């Protein structure tokens, strides 16, 4: 089915994911070499989206493990259903089962909660896509454990024995790079760095993803965002913010950028109080005015001119 980089690109584009050669090549290689992909990049550039689109395109299940500090093996892999075990023991109270038999009974699969990693390994029908999101938030112990799972695709539960993957899942890990991951983990993976999109790509994404957005508005939003990323912001908006913004503008029946509507909806793209205080009002309005004066078909390289107005 998958024959080359081009077909991966087509597959992803059919899912409305605007891709580029680098993303398509890495995804293609991950599928062929059966290696996990490690996706790094700033927040809101569509890292998680890669896994979602992949699952959808392959028509398979997406299993997601969200990482956080203190995430431990139990939460990621499996837990025993204690209340159920307790009840069962009550039921078996008068039965003739020995203590050992009772123990075997309540530590069997029906009493097991499967957490994401175990789900991914024990998926019966076809390989799922396993998304391990924000791995940089988990601690090093967990990273080491993950490394083990990713190299063997098998898991040992003391009470049950070893469970081996029926189908090796496709694995994508994302990281916001708040800390450096271990070389061992990186080594296990194909590496993909996704940066903020180019003007053309951003306009295309907005057009594809936001129903009802017209060509000119998509171009204007993209131009504004490209310029905004060069402002001194403490939280730089990603493509996720552009999309939210476009949806809000559509809800306000805007078909082009206007200072008033932009000010009202600025919270969609600037998410830090200091950023809003610094830029809301004259500076944002100057940027919008600069965009409005330009030909919507000629915004690709307008970034410097827009920025100059914001600084003036």
């Amino acid at each position, binding site marked *: 089915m998958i024959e080359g980089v081009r077909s991966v690109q087509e597959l992803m584009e059919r899912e409305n994911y605007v891709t580029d050669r680098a993303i398509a090549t890495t995804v293609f290689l991950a599928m062929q070499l059966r290696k996990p992909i490690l996706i790094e990049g700033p927040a809101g550039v569509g890292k998680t989206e890669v896994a979602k689109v992949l699952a959808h395109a392959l028509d398979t299940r997406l299993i997601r493990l969200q990482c956080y500090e203190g995430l431990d093996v139990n939460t990621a892999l499996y837990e025993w259903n204690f209340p159920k075990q307790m009840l069962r023991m009550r039921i078996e109270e008068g039965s003739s089962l020995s203590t050992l038999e009772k123990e075997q009974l309540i530590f069997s699969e029906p009493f097991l909660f499967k957490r994401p990693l175990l789900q991914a390994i024990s998926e019966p029908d076809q390989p799922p896509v396993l998304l391990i999101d924000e791995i940089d938030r988990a601690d090093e112990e967990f990273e080491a454990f993950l490394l083990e799972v990713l190299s063997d695709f098998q898991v040992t539960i003391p009470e049950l024995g070893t469970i081996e993957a029926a189908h090796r899942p496709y694995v994508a890990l994302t990281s916001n790079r708040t800390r450096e991951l271990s070389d061992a983990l990186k080594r296990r993976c194909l590496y993909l*760095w996704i940066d903020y999109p180019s003007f053309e790509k951003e306009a295309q994404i907005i057009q594809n993803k936001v129903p009802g957005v017209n060509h000119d508005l998509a171009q204007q939003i993209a131009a504004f965002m490209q310029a905004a990323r060069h402002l001194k912001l403490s939280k730089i908006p990603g493509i996720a913010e552009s999309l939210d913004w476009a949806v809000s503008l559509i809800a306000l029946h805007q078909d082009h950028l206007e200072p008033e509507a932009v000010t009202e909806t600025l919270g969609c793209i600037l998410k830090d109080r200091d950023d809003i205080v610094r830029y809301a009002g004259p500076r944002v309005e100057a940027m919008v005015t600069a965009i409005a004066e330009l030909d919507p078909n000629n915004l690709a390289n307008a970034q410097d001119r827009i920025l100059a107005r914001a600084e003036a």
Partner: protein
Amino acid sequence: MNTDPSPRYGGAVSLQSVENEAGQRVWPDISRATRSDLAHNVIDFARLLRSSGLLASPAEVHDVVRALRFIDLADRHEFYLTLRSILLWNPDQQEMFDQLFERFWGGWTDEEAVIQEERAPTMQSAQSEQVESQSSDASYSAMEALIEKDFSDFRPDELGAVARACVVIAKRVATRKSRRYRITSRGSRVDPRRTIRRNVKFGGTVLELSKLERKVRKPRIVVICDVSRSMEQYSVFLLQFMHSMQNVIGRIESFVFSTALHRVSSYFKHSDIQTALEDIAREVPDWSGGTRIGESLHTFNQDFARRLVDQRTVVIILSDGLDTGQTDVLAEEMARLHSRCARLIWLNPLLGKDHYQPVARGMAAALPHLDVFAAAHNLASLQHLANSLATPRGPRPARTLVG
């Protein structure tokens, strides 16, 4: 395995042996594709990457060779992207990777993958500039080193008191509770899994509890101490503090800076503080010189942070924030450091002064990136610090503690 010689990649003519030049392995041998088969060229390329500090082990080479079966070899950009996604893991090294790729596999032009020829010279001149600035720095430091520092002025009993207090503080720091649990019989949280198991024999009536207790976790600590002239009166005491911490905690890395950064952890391995101080004063040429915090932190982030700082590392900067370097560099490096570490603490001896406001340019630039901003002018303030270390990472802006 596709090892077909491909003229586009192989440089079909020369089958140059690596040992040809005087039997030695020399740089030009692996600097470009000279073999007639692709797999060997990939091996050479990996070797070139390794010699330039990138990680490219035989395992990755194996993956590349496997991957070459699946891709369109006639498409140079695809070939480039394939090598990049397997052999490059750090976006900061992409420029270097691109240059090496161009040098090694050079000779094609492809719109997307073209790496401008100008780039190489630019980098070279940047390097030579750096060398120049380093050498001028060195002579500058040599001049500064003339200002000799004699530690004998300090009364020994003072140092002793500092040392004792520092040990108490350091122990406090060393026993922060982790988020992870371990199994004990007297902890605060019930471990349901083990409890159930232990009570099967009572028919499910819970008679014996297994408990969990938070593990004591020793944080890693990095201390970076300003020993410039404006810090003169304090730095000895602060180094004493670092010394005590190192002896109690073990996992602590110490640095000092004035105009440049120096790693001094090894000097603190002497149990005698006096010897350690003398060693450091001898080894650090710019002791009591000017202050370039931003540039020193840049060196730290660049050369050490990757190995020494992780999400459980507490980084402590001891400085008055009177910076003569560039404040935007300082702000940027502080932000980088803050995102890497568990907590970023700044101890400022001036904070103990009655009317002090952190308005010095350097201090103002650093403030938004701190978790704790505290005084460090006397023992009381250091004890205060120990208390603040026992509480979790607070929201920004930093809490200011005046002891």
